[in-house]
């Protein structure tokens, strides 16, 4: 079998990073949620907050562990599978990843130990501080990695040498490249929103099944309230992000809109089957002038078309087109569900609670769809307009070895995912059990002084 190592390396990267991003998406939001809940516990001394903390920290620990083990391979895959890319861009994005490790990873990994295991060993103040540091660390890590990704989308601040190597001219410009603020805001909000629906959905189920429903109801309300604010906010941020993409990556926007020929009065397509060979769409259903109106705030506004660039410089249209619709569709559904919950807040019907429980995965699907839009939409480049994906993959690697590693990752990741879901579901079924163990006490003396040589 003759398999293309380039395609395989890309598939492997896509699979491992898509799998990985599910967990940080949850842990960034959950860390913030836990900080809030612990703060409420310390402030109100209502033990239900403590019980909620001790329940959600279990899911957090499981999810964080998955994020760590699937994250470590990422820091090596640039080198193993994309060595020409690493040679070319290491000067620019290597230090950004370095800063992520220095400022964020050590912070979260170190204080995680206290957060998970230190409940009885440190005072409430230090424990709360540890939770805050973990929450801060997870968000800081998003800052650096999104800066690196955004530089690949909208590169600036560098000099591209004749040898094909990028060298940094201005770090400020590299870090705060044009798409970075929008992507950071969009992703952090996605993480918080995903978590809101996880918290609301899981709590809704616990209320339905009466797993410590009185406690779960507090988290349910918190989740709905957060979603009601975050979901509309995300729509606005997403719009700004889209306008930024229109300015800097017009071809990506053309693919998102499924628009082949640039021009005014372009419809907002609700459905279509893009045909790359014929450079047209089939079965279009659209709102006349809609795309022009959204992107240019006027039906006369010119929307870029895919045919603005040669066929070899276009992304795979259908993937971008449909992923975008999945993301936006879920986003609209989230707004609807959240506000329905606010309107019905006095008495939430069981059907609504079941609906919320069914939306636990919604944020993850939307996040993956959004990343598919932004990453596939950048193709056929790894660094927009400057370095092609085909020139980025390690030429040293042969098809069979990458095929083997890809299959190994796929099998192992799915195995651990199954175990993760099993243990997470079990924790959810048990629910936020009232915990009668003593609350955090001022630091206890160590259980035994270390005997020995010192």
């Amino acid at each position: 079998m003759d398999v293309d190592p380039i395609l395989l390396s890309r598939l492997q990267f896509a699979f491992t990073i898509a799998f990985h991003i599910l967990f940080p998406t949850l842990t960034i939001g959950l860390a913030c949620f836990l900080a809030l809940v612990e703060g409420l516990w310390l402030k109100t001394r209502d033990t239900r907050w403590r019980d909620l903390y001790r329940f959600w920290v279990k899911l957090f620990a499981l999810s964080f562990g998955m994020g760590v083990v699937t994250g470590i391979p990422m820091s090596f895959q640039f080198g193993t599978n994309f060595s020409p890319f690493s040679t070319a861009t290491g000067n620019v994005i290597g230090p950004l990843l370095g800063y992520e490790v220095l400022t964020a990873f050590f912070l979260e990994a170190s204080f995680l130990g206290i957060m998970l295991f230190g409940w009885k060993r440190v005072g409430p103040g230090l424990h709360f501080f540890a939770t805050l540091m973990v929450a801060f660390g997870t968000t800081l890590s998003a800052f650096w990695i999104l800066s690196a990704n955004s530089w690949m989308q909208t590169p600036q601040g560098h000099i591209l040498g004749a040898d094909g190597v990028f060298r940094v001219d201005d770090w400020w410009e590299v870090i705060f490249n044009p798409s970075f603020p929008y992507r950071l805001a969009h992703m952090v909000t996605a993480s918080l929103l995903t978590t809101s629906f996880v918290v609301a959905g899981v709590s809704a189920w616990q209320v339905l099944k009466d797993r410590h429903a009185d406690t779960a109801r507090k988290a349910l309300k918190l989740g709905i309230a957060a979603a009601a604010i975050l979901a509309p906010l995300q729509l606005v941020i997403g719009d700004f992000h889209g306008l930024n993409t229109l300015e800097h990556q017009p071809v990506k926007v053309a693919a998102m809109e499924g628009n082949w020929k640039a021009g005014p009065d372009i419809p907002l397509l609700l459905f279509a089957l893009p045909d790359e060979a014929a450079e047209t769409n089939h079965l279009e259903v659209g709102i006349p002038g809609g795309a022009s109106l959204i992107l240019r705030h006027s039906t006369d506004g010119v929307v870029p078309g895919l045919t603005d660039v040669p066929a070899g410089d276009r992304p795979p249209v259908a993937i971008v087109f449909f992923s975008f619709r999945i993301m936006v569709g879920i986003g609209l559904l989230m707004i609807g569900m959240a506000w329905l919950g606010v309107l019905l807040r006095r008495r939430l019907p069981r059907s609504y609670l079941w609906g919320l429980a069914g939306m636990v995965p919604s944020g993850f699907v939307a996040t993956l769809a959004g990343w598919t839009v932004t990453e596939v939409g950048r193709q056929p480049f790894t660094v927009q307009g400057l370095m092609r994906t085909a020139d980025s993959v390690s030429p040293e690697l042969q098809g069979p070895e990458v095929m083997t590693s890809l299959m190994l990752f796929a099998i192992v990741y799915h195995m651990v995912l199954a175990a993760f879901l099993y243990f997470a579901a079990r924790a959810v079924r048990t629910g936020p059990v009232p915990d009668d163990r003593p609350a955090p006490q001022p630091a206890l003396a160590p259980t035994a002084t270390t005997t020995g040589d010192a």
Partner: protein
Amino acid sequence: MDLPLIWTAVIAFGVAMYIIMDGFDLGVGILFPFARDEAWRDVMMDSIAPVWDGNETWLVLGGAGLFGAFPLAYATVLPALYVPLILFLVALVFRGIAFEFRHRADTSRGLWNLSFAAGSTLAAFAQGLVLGSFVQGLPIENGRFVGDVLSFLTPFSVFTGAALVVGYGLLGATWLIRKTEGDLQARAFAWARGLALGLLAAIVAVSLWTPLTQEAIAARWFGMPGLLLLSPIPVLTAFCGLFLLLSLKARRENMPFLFAIGLFLLSYLGLAVSLWPYIVPRALTIWDAAAPPTTQLFLLVGVVLFIPLILIYTVIVYRVFRGKVRHGEGYHH
């Protein structure tokens, strides 16, 4: 200011931190199958559960630091070591998830014991494969790997793989001596003694093997002035090994761990001397592979600002969890 030289020191420091810190927690995993019962395994795992994640972060720092400061070395070595690196990463997945899953399991506990023990052992072995083939020198021409998928597999790399399993096992056993008491501690003393003898034999073997097969290394160690300048390294190693065995015999609780670390650091120094000034042996020197000064300086600022901070909160965490681990102490979340 010689930035590549400073950066070499930074990376060397990071790798040393990784080897020692993840070394002892990988070692606890390597010793896992030899535990008498589940109660022992609970204690063994509890002794490292709050710190393993921070320990492993030094590996990520090594990867990211190499990517940023020596991108050419990163891009040359990593594809060349594809198979052992992928094995290593997959093994780390198995051991990493075992911490949470084993704690929550009741019927599947045996599965997570296996996942933890096999993952830790394979991770150590694959690291040794990487080390061995790296030291031997990879077939690289014009900055590109020209070997095949199995170039990493040599008698030497298999030997260093096994040696690293023994070495990490020793770090793990001496860690357990510090953190446990009673029967488990007594057994850890026995493990440590056997593993110490094994590691010392491996150090002697590698010290003979590399100069006999690589002229450049022989010339460095046995030529002048190398012989005089470098002789303290083997002498100190011998003393360190002797003190390690004596401290085990005297049932000291903290010293064996420190002497085991000493053995690792001296061996590491020995390898550095053998390979200097190459960052990719016999192919790229640290100056060939260095990123431009703008890049190295930018990241160095972060290192200078944050490494001291990282060390401070690492100390805080280790202090919070100091002392003996007792079974059923239940400081689990």
